[in-house]
């Protein structure tokens, strides 16, 4: 989830630098700092279950910012902070379990953070964002794919996807019944400023 911001920055930077007519037209002015707004953004995740199906959920509260460097995409940045207490799966008992010390321990570890370390452009509107994800006191490098969805009126939107192994953060409870791989699918929308 954290990498989204990074991705966003990367994408914006990539688009800005790229010659794509459409992107160039709208993104030449994209350089700058964006604040991720919860309205228009979503951080969803999915964990496969043994025998088929998945456990799907989303985080309702998060903050973050994206810095798009027009001249040098590599210097773009993404920072995201997620409040795990806001996790929602549609099942109160599962939410309580996820918030408990079995998984997030939200009472003692109220934030999950992502800080980008590198943004690498991979196409006209795509980029790979690497960075450090910190959850429950453990930090590990993660990689996310970002795609620019829109840029207009000072609002920039990216779709960011990636896979995180929850065992790296001491959250391996329930494996192999529930997959160790958490698939993130995020829409990150930032407003200039």
């Amino acid at each position, binding site marked *: 989830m954290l990498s989204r911001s990074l991705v966003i920055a990367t994408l914006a930077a990539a688009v800005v630098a790229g010659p794509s007519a459409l992107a160039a037209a709208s993104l030449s002015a994209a350089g700058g700092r964006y604040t991720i707004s919860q309205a228009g953004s979503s951080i969803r995740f999915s964990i496969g*279950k043994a025998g088929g199906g998945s456990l799907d959920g989303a985080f309702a509260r998060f903050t973050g910012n994206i810095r798009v460097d027009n001249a040098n995409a590599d210097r773009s940045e993404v920072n995201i902070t997620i409040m795990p207490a806001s996790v929602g799966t549609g*099942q109160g008992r599962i939410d*309580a379990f996820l918030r*408990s010390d079995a998984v997030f321990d939200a009472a003692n570890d109220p934030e999950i953070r992502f800080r980008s370390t590198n943004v690498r452009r991979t196409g006209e509107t795509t980029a790979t964002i690497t960075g450090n994800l910190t959850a429950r006191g453990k930090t590990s490098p993660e990689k996310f794919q970002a795609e620019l969805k829109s840029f207009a009126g000072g609002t920039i939107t990216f779709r960011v996807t990636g896979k995180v192994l929850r065992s790296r953060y001491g959250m391996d*409870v329930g494996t*192999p019944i529930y997959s160790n791989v958490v698939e993130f699918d995020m829409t990150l929308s930032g407003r200039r400023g």
Partner: protein
Amino acid sequence: MALLIRNTGGRYGWIAILLHWSVGLLFIGQIVLGLVMVRTTSQRSAFELIQLHKSFGFLLFGLILLRLGWRLANVTPRLPAETGLLERRAAPAAHFALYALQLVLPLTGWALVSASVLEIPTMPFDLFVMPNLPVPISDAAEGWWRVVHVYLAYAAIVLVAVHVLAALRHHFWLRDIILVRMISPSRRCDDDGPE
């Protein structure tokens, strides 16, 4: 001496004995595990203990089906001649009830898991996915099966306690063959029945 596999008119064979003790010990362990896991405050431990309870529940269920099949295919050793009228009536009834609980407890546990809206997969010992029973899924249905499972488990605690006390009474007070013949088919005893 030939190894006694099947029951005779007076003695339990090795298969019945092995099944009695393996099921009996696992059954008591399963009750203790059930009582502990629902009172565990750590959500992580509770989750893992419940998965263990489901795994052992299915292992037990398999052994119990074998045991029931073996019981139906064998004679039941007769009670010693000096057994009183009350116990002559009560023992078969108690054993029937114990067999019924052995069958119904795993089934109601399976039903309660199958009825849960949480749809947590069951993987006995992480080996394979056990399908759910085709029961209606809702919070109300899960709650109903839970009540049935839990109260049957409490009934089993009472019955097993009476059963164990009865066995100890036979051995240490009446000093008859009842406990001895559930330990070995060949151990001699004064009132050993005719083979």
